């Protein structure tokens, strides 16, 4: 290990240090000052990590070829830090209300963020697996953080069991790849796979196992069953985080492995991904249609969004725009979906799980700003301009059509109509019904409102001027051009 190796992972080191610092601060300060300082420390550490990114020299490998720093890494590092900041800002009031240990929450989010950042560094099967585990294990803890809430326990247990199962499948797939190629580096695997070709039993087994393992992580239908319960039962700020960051990381892993290591087989598995994409978006949307609980509805809808992103993965034949579409959509989805879940925190009070549609009645009159932010996130998730969700869909439709998957493009369009129905129904309840007289009191948190306001503003601003973000995504996709 040399100095440049350390410098290469400076952002990761900073986030890890922040996580340790958070634990120390939590242990040493009394409750009240801890409540104030913990989020501040967390956010400052994450901002430091973002700022330290540019000091790292781009596009080189470190640690003897175990990791790589390229434009792709830089893009995702910033994204993960932004998501962690967002998840930190919306949490404090909720945590103290539900007496969830705040220090543990922030530290867990930070550790999970380090894991996600490790995934995007990976140029080796081992690194990527370590990153995946480092990301998901804290998320299991996050899901179960409300220790006295049985739904939270159920969420954690389900997520853990199925997560462990999928990790095992993935790892098994990795061992097959190692068996085929005799190496764990992506470059070596790619070479070996190219030599053996597609009509090879062992390659097929490895491919199937890896695909299924990653499909579990990204919540692709039919490997999505853990999602609704895990998202629904977890404490809402945790749900907001785990619905976006692990998904973004899963897609980073899919790009790294499927295009980086198994790219030579691409032509053959893109059809599988196209079918999975269609099934996933349709399945998620259809089930979301009938959910009376908004938190559960958003959980199913996040499955549908997996489908849209997967469509762009399937369209990888279109080249850089396809990978850029994945990155752009993941970014957009991160902000809008985290924001949408976080909006539920206003209503998600003691003893409730999320909010039912009826509890949202007249929300616009009770909290005009919160309702507006929620409406913006929902409209963006629907994909109506001028929001980032719309532009992201356009960027996906482009490569999908370009690679000849016209049927998939039509399915995406029709699915957006389905999604409009249930997303806009929430707007109906917020804006078009009167509040119930015995409606529970709303959470009043300036920090939450400020965070959501900023998120909603970003949703609209990037929706109107998306070019710089898209350019950045295109740059970040450069490592995948062959």
């Amino acid at each position, binding site marked *: 290990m040399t100095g440049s190796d350390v410098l290469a992972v400076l952002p990761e080191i900073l986030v890890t240090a922040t996580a340790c610092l958070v634990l120390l601060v939590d242990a040493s300060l009394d409750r009240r000052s801890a409540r104030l300082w913990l989020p501040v420390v967390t956010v400052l550490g994450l901002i430091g990590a973002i700022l330290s990114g540019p000091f790292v020299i781009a596009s080189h490998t470190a640690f003897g070829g175990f990791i790589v720093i390229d434009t792709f890494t830089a893009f995702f590092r910033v994204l993960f830090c932004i998501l962690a900041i967002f998840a930190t800002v919306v949490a404090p009031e909720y945590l103290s209300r539900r007496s969830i240990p705040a220090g543990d929450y922030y530290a867990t989010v930070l550790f999970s963020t380090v894991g996600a950042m490790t995934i995007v560094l990976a140029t080796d099967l081992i690194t990527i697996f370590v990153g995946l585990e480092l990301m998901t294990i804290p998320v299991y803890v996050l899901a179960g953080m409300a220790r006295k809430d049985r739904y939270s326990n159920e969420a954690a247990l389900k997520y853990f069991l199925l997560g462990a199962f999928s990790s095992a499948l993935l790892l098994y797939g990795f061992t097959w790849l190692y068996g085929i190629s005799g190496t764990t580096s992506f470059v070596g695997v790619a070479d070996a796979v190219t030599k053996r070709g597609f009509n090879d039993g062992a390659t097929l087994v490895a491919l199937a196992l890896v695909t299924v393992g990653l499909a579990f992580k990204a919540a692709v239908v039919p490997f999505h069953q853990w999602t609704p319960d895990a998202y629904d039962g977890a404490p809402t700020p945790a749900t907001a985080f785990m619905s976006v960051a692990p998904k973004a990381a899963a897609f980073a892993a899919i790009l790294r492995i499927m295009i980086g290591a198994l790219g030579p087989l691409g032509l053959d598995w893109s059809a599988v991904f196209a079918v999975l994409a269609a099934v996933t978006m349709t399945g998620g949307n259809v089930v979301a249609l009938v959910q009376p609980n908004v938190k559960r509805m958003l959980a199913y809808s996040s499955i549908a969004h997996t489908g849209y992103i997967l469509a762009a993965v399937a369209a990888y034949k279109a080249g850089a725009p396809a990978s850029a579409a994945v990155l752009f959509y993941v970014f957009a989805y991160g902000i809008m979906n985290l924001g949408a879940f976080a909006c539920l925190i206003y209503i998600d009070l003691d003893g409730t799980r999320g909010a039912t549609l009826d509890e949202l009645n007249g929300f616009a009159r009770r909290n005009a700003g919160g309702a507006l932010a929620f409406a913006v996130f929902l409209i963006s998730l629907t994909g109506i301009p001028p929001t980032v969700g719309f532009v992201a869909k356009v960027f996906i439709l482009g490569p999908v059509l370009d690679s000849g998957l016209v049927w998939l493009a039509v399915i995406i*369009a029709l699915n957006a109509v389905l999604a*409009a129905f249930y997303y*806009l129904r929430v707007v109906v309840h917020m804006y*078009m019904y009167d509040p119930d007289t015995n409606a529970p009191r709303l959470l009043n948190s300036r920090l939450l409102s400020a965070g959501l306001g900023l998120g909603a503003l970003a949703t609209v601003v990037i929706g109107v001027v998306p070019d710089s973000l898209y350019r950045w995504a295109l740059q970040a996709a450069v490592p995948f051009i062959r």
Partner: protein
Amino acid sequence: MDHLLTLLVLVPIVGLIPLVLFRRDVRAVKQVAVITTFVELVVSLVMLAQFHVGEAAFQLVESIPWIPSFGIRYELGVDGISVLLIPMTTLLTFIAVLYSTGGSIKTRLGEYMAAFLLLEVGMVGVFMALDLFLFYVFFELMLVPMYLIIGIWGGPRKVYATLKFVLFTLAGSLLMLVGIIAVYLASGDVGNRTLSLPELLAHPGRFNGNFQFWVFLAFALAFAIKLPMVPFHTWLPDAHVEAPTAGSIVLAGVLLKAGGYGFLRFALPLFPIGTQAWLPILILLSVVAILYGAIVSVVQKDLKKLVAYSSVAHMGFVTLGIFVLNQQGGVGAVLQMLNHGFVTGALFLFVGILYEKTHRRQIADLGGLANTWPLYTAFFGVFVFASLGLPGLNGFIGEFLVLLGTFKFDPANGPGGLFWGPAAALGVILAAVYMLWMFQRVMYGTIREAYRNLPDLTPLEVVCAVPLLVLTVLLGIFPQPAIAIISPSVQRILAFATDASQVVLK
């Protein structure tokens, strides 16, 4: 005044700022909204004054890169068609906002006016956008404000109506989005792709027949739902019945026109082969819309529904005029759009006024109102006669030109103008039946005691109605200036749509 069109987009957005600041003060909200829409109206009239009549190409063009990595431009421009539709839009929005200050909206006035200003951005944008992507953004921008206007300030079944409206519209427009992206991909090689209409039209022939067949369908679905054409019209009566009066005025007056305009601006010139392929079906649907809309109007018991279904019939004339692909038909269709905007906007205004005073919309509950409301009867009468196409009023000119074009329609195979012309003319007769019958039942006969002491039009209502009345009469007796503005642009569009080299390619 280089950025006149951008100014049109910006004025309502700027108006939103004081609206948000003073949202708690009802008086201030009203003043800001009225002043903003008035300024917008003035700017649009300045634009009309700067327009060079007789030129077919786009004028006042502004074009800057917007999303360069995707080849998308912020490109605005007007031709003889949009230069008239934009002042119509700003006038109707002004009237809708002005009328709403009269007390018909009782809750959340600040949000209501904000929705109208946002809606205005989308509406004027649709008629100016020359980049397909920009057009789509404005097209969808109209959706959310109207969704809120119907859903929050609408009638008893507002939620059902507004969701139906949004889902129908979205279903069409999202397929159009797929079509737009397909156009983008087919427009050239990587790095050369564009969605700018002038550039796409500069080199025709880049889309092959099969491509045009499907993409035209995607565009046509979106526009046919928006217009609406039979059988995609079912959202319209619900939306109109539940919408507040001002919402109905703008919905019927402007939003429906976005469909007809879309056909003329994009679908026809870009896809001549697709147009030819779908022409017979679209003409059939247009004539069906004319007859069906008229027949269903005859049996309506609800005044607002009657006007809504009559819109279906009138829009049938618009599409018929567009798809007979000749000069008279095209000019007639554009005139019909304008006239329908003024006349049907006015009809919805008067039905709304009637409802405000009597709280009834069922024709059977009304009657004899002419005795107590001479002024109302006079205004309403003129608009009813204009709507049924009485010569001397504006409704006549548009329908007459469309019928003239239809009789001249002479396709290579299938039924020609001599079949469709008389069928469509039957719709004009039916219009007289339902309009006059309605007018007679509402305004004449014996009056109910309860209505005897109701006041006639208020000054505010008169102010709202007079500009529409003036235009109805003026365009009726002196349509030549409007035709002179429209003609060259229609001719240019038809030249693209009937480009022999392209159509023969098939």
